[in-house]
């Protein structure tokens, strides 16, 4: 990521890169989240979201319970094979731009549940931007993961050109 930052843009693209940076700045502080909570990690999510740790300080305070209105999918908890199509549908329903956070060990890798029922990491189903480890993760870890995601968004190549869709 730091390499991208240091790379000098071609002379003519100065304005577009600045606009890209502005978009990144705008988007990283207005993350609407869709919490896909299935297990005990949800308690830590609530803790991180409520007043004590207050995820709103970092511009991710809005919880939307419709995937159409959200741009940050938090997969909080164990995902089973029975549930995988549901998660996939929710991801597909979200509009671009969208980011996915795997919250807790179960979402990251299946955790201790290496058995017939559990998906061994949600990256087998949907692309993941940030992995937050922990069983469950402390709210500080959650906030750290959010900061990592914001840094990623800031330096991302944003698809802002209305004429062309990415892939």
């Amino acid at each position: 990521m730091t390499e991208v930052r240091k790379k000098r843009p071609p002379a003519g693209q100065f304005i577009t890169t600045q606009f890209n940076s502005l978009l990144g700045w705008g988007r990283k502080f207005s993350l609407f989240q869709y919490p896909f909570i299935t297990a005990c990690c949800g308690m830590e999510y609530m803790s991180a979201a409520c007043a004590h740790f207050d995820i709103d300080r970092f511009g991710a305070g809005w919880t939307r319970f419709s995937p159409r209105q959200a741009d940050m999918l938090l997969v909080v908890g164990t995902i089973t094979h029975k549930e995988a199509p549901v998660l996939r549908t929710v991801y597909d329903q979200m509009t671009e731009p969208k980011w996915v956070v795997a919250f807790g060990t179960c979402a990251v890798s299946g955790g201790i549940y290496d058995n017939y029922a559990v998906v061994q990491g949600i990256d087998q189903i949907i692309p993941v931007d940030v992995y937050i480890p922990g069983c469950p993760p402390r709210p500080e870890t959650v906030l750290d993961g959010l900061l990592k995601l914001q840094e990623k968004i800031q330096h991302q190549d944003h698809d802002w050109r209305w004429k062309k869709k990415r892939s």
Partner: protein
Amino acid sequence: MEEKAILDELRQKFPAGIRETSASPGDEVVVIEKAALLEIAAFLRDGRDKFTMLLDLTCVDYAGEEPRFEMVYHLFSLSRNRRLRIKARLGEGDLRIASLTPLWKNASWLEREVYDLFGVQFEGHPDLRRLFMYDGFEGHPLRKDYPLRRRQPLIRLKE
């Protein structure tokens, strides 16, 4: 004292159905023949001790033994505050046993669970479908011979 009483009563009443009984404090166990399950359960529910509550119903897979499976029923008497455990062995060739749904309504989902995870057939169950696993799932995952790493995903997984 009371434990002995109920076990003795069962032995007298169903001499053919009872295989063995044991009692240690707070832990009464009756091992029965599976054919006698329904009448013994009905007697326990409506008899003197009134075991009106079916606490749990589950199955154990003793792989390598014969008979291989064992059904376990936990009953509770609200009026006497006592528990009773019924066990019945099932051979792998004949995995059928009477359903307890006529006696206790909550047996329905418990039996569906056991059917789903162990493949025991409950005769007389009104709606014997899988409870946890999805349609199209093959095999019974809690059996000891279900392959440890076997996965049956519903959607295509990335490697």
